[in-house]
């Protein structure tokens, strides 16, 4: 037999295959022989009787049985693997996708973004591992036994199926989560949050199908090698990289926690690499298109059209969700009008206060940022002097034991004390005035326009430090004077707005820190104790303060939002506020008035619904500032943390009630020689009424009294409320000899 092939025979062989209906007589003997061979091989009559009539049925049964007789792991994997091959656009594929993507969306809703990114990564790794296991466990077969040949996914082009779907699933999850999380962006959507999880799931599924539909033509083109398949993989790799970056950014994840910064690769570099890779991939794809261009351009056009067609219903759905998610009406219309009238009357009364009777007017040059703005000042020398005064008062914080630096030189501390004492008469003068109204000076305003909180607190700390020094030096009279002055100062910042109330609560918390030490270590006379009791009574917060404050706060925000709705901010701090914040400014300009009106109504509904809570000091809502996204203008930018404020206020009410009781018990002991068996013995001579445990979440009339128990020569005065767990991480608060007093004593000694 010949191994060399003549070109003539090669051509002859090809001719045999190409021409139909060849006649034997037109061929030579070799050709006729080959035609005979063809005839023989095709002639079914010459086939031996081979397959039994039931071959199909018996073979199918045997194959199925053998297949399931393999190890259960292999069978299961093979069965799961077939799910990956279900065509997306078949009814079964759509159903399956809907279920899987709903679960994915649900997981995205329940878990954090970080978990979502992790889930995507696990999905990717898990699929590859499953496929690897499957390939590894397969029995020997006709194909090459090499691992790579059984694992098409390990070959780069095989990643077609994986990377795009993972990228799209993650994108869909992000979009769906965004919709489901609208209640955190907008108070309106918070009010209608019941439909948002469902809308989020639906958006996830629709986005997924839409993206798959839009990109399928491009993938097909890539698969048919219209351009290199690797480019699709790189493109989606870059897409995934950008998604990961987005997740990390939106979740405020510090990249250094992954050790990336240690390698000198900050997130901007990662983003840059991802974007450059994507760009190079697509440019290369464009350059490598085939000469006739049709498949590539057609695929691109179809993808583009698919994108546009798919985006229309998404926008429509978004618009409908937006429309129906907006708050349409104001509940408590009558109450709202009454609130506006009351607050405006209050503001008018405050503005009528003559400047010389208002203590805050005297402090204005030092306490307001606007007054200390050197650039806008007419008399710069005056501003410089005011800044000096503010600086000396601010140094008061160094006198407080919590802030004292042990290594600080004594002469420095002496100078600080001297400076602080030099400016203290200004404070004494201010608090001696009959009024201390912020409204009359500044009107209601946003939280960045309140009196300087740091300075207010520093003065409180300075007074607390002076009082403590005097007590340690045995001068209880002087110590009591500073304490009474501090209580008075701390209660002066009016409750015109919630932030002012919060400042005041924080100051009173510092000012009252040493009251128990006074009582148990100060060796106070009955008269001194009476004066202390009176000071406490006068400076204690009132139950109604919270409601008044919250109504004024609500009025302030409402006024602001009304101006936003009308697109007419009347200058001053409002305008500055809008201009000063990038995100805010953008939102202010792009969101329609209907959105702001809706936000206004939703805010009023949310606030006024709680008016009974403010009045009763009942169970405060648990809405925390952390739950509200940075974009929520109303809640995050305009109002302080109103739920915590309420709890802190209630805690302060309880603290004052407890301290008045502690002083009353001490007066009783001085008179009677021992503590009373119960608190009833104190009323009415030493106490006006039994101390209410205000922080208890019951409504006012059902709040219990503080619990009192005599323990030998001492006693226990206890407040118990589940709310303590949130603010002090303890189940209860002890007052009296074993309570805060012990804690404070430990810090001093």
């Amino acid at each position: 037999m010949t191994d060399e092939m003549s070109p003539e025979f090669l051509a002859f062989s090809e001719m045999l295959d190409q021409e139909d209906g060849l006649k034997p007589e037109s061929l030579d003997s070799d050709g006729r022989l080959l035609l005979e061979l063809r005839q023989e091989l095709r002639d079914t009559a010459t086939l031996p009787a081979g397959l039994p009539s039931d071959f199909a049925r018996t073979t199918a049964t045997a194959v199925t049985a053998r297949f399931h007789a393999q190890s259960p792991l292999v069978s299961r994997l093979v069965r799961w693997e077939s799910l990956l091959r279900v065509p997306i656009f078949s009814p079964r594929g759509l159903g399956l996708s809907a279920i899987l993507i709903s679960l994915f969306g649900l997981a995205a809703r329940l878990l954090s973004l970080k978990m979502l990114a992790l889930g995507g990564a696990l999905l990717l790794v898990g699929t590859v591992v499953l496929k690897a296991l499957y390939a590894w466990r397969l029995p020997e077969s006709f194909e090459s036994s090499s691992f790579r040949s059984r694992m098409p996914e390990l070959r780069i082009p095989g990643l077609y199926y994986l990377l795009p779907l993972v990228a799209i699933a993650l994108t869909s999850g992000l979009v769906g989560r965004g919709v489901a999380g609208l209640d955190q962006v907008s108070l309106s959507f918070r009010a209608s949050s019941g439909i948002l999880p469902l809308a989020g799931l639906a958006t996830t599924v629709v986005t997924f199908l839409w993206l798959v539909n839009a990109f399928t033509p491009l993938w097909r083109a890539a698969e048919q090698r219209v351009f290199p398949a690797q480019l699709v993989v790189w493109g989606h790799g870059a897409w995934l990289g950008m998604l990961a970056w987005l997740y990390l950014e939106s979740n405020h994840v510090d990249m250094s926690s992954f050790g990336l910064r240690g390698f000198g690769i900050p997130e901007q570099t990662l983003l840059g690499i991802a974007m450059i890779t994507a760009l190079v991939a697509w440019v290369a794809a464009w350059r490598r298109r085939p000469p006739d261009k049709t498949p590539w351009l057609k695929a691109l056009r179809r993808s583009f059209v698919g994108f546009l067609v798919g985006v229309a219903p998404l926008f429509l759905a978004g618009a409908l969700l937006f429309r129906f998610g907006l708050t349409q009406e104001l509940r408590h219309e009558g109450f709202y009008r009454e609130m506006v009238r009351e607050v405006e009357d209050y503001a008018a009364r405050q503005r009528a206060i003559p400047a010389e009777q208002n203590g805050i007017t005297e402090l204005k040059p030092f306490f307001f940022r606007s007054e200390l703005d050197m650039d806008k000042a007419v008399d710069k020398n005056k501003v410089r002097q005011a800044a000096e005064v503010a600086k000396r008062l601010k140094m008061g914080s160094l006198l407080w034991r919590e802030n004292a630096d042990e290594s600080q030189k004594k002469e420095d501390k002496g100078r600080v004390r001297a400076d602080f004492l030099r400016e203290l008469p200004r404070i004494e003068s201010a608090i001696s005035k009959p009024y201390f109204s912020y409204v009359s000076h500044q009107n209601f305003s946003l939280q960045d326009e309140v009196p300087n909180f740091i300075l207010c607190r520093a003065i409180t700390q300075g007074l607390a430090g002076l009082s403590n020094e005097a007590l340690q030096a045995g001068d209880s009279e002087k110590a009591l004077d500073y304490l009474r002055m501090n209580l008075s100062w701390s209660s002066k910042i009016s409750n015109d707005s919630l932030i002012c109330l919060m400042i005041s609560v924080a100051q009173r918390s510092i000012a009252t820190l040493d009251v128990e030490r006074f009582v148990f270590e100060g060796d106070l006379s009955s008269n001194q104790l009476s004066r202390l009791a009176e000071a406490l009574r006068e400076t204690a917060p009132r139950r109604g303060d919270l409601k008044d404050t919250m109504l004024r706060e609500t009025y302030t925000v409402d006024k602001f939002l009304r101006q936003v709705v009308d697109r007419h901010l009347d200058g001053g701090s409002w305008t500055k506020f809008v201009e000063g914040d990038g995100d805010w400014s953008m939102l202010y300009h792009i969101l329609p008035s209907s959105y702001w009106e809706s936000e206004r109504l939703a805010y009023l509904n949310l606030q006024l619904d709680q008016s009974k809570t403010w009045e009763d000091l009942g169970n405060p809502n648990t809405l925390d500032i952390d739950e509200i996204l940075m974009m929520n203008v109303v809640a995050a930018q305009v109002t302080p943390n109103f739920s915590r404020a309420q709890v802190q206020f209630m805690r302060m009410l309880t603290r004052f009630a407890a301290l008045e009781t502690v002083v009353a018990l001490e007066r009783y002991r001085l008179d009677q020689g021992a503590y009373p068996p119960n608190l009833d013995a104190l009323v009415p001579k030493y106490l006006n009424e039994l101390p209410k445990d205000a922080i208890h979440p019951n409504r006012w009339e059902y709040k219990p009294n503080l619990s009192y128990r005599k323990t030998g020569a001492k006693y226990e005065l206890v407040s118990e409320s589940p709310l303590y767990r949130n603010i002090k991480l303890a189940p209860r608060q002890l007052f009296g000899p074993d309570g805060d007093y012990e804690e404070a004593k430990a810090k001093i000694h």
Partner: protein
Amino acid sequence: MSATLTMGEMTGQERTTAASGELEELARRLQLRDEGALEALIARTESACYRLAYSITSDSELSRDALQEAYFLVFQRIGQLREPAAFKGWLFRIVSHCCHDILRRRRREVQTDFEEREDLQALPEEGDLAEEVTRAQKIRSTFAALPEIDRTALALREVCSMSYEEMSRVLDVPLGTVRSRLAKARQRFIDAYKGVNR
């Protein structure tokens, strides 16, 4: 005939397309593990596969065994078939591989000597007919004695009526190699036949 894969008999483009469409649908159903799809697919392809197998093994029993192994692999690995449209070529490739496997395993046992084959011995041998039958027997015995590689190439082309492109995919060789392999197989067949005659 329309219910079976015709191959040799099927020459019209339309019928080929229709048959491919049916096969493609069956392959899709099998990928989804659709109940009954395997039996339908076997019924649809067994005749063609058997002829291909017999062309390679020249033994009906071995062909049956090869087919059973081939259908098991088809069922097991159908998920790896990315394009159901390419099912026909994929199936023939599996069948031919299974045939070679089974031949390798049983090389010592398999009796390829034409004279000892019962099915051919039973053929009549009288007059013109006898002469014709003898010539046919010799053609087939020569074909059966060809190397596997030649038998496979010729079977795919002559029995399965595959194009060069399809053969290139099934055999996993370039188009030019298909062309030369077929020509060489034909040349060897002619040489062998003439040698027998001489």
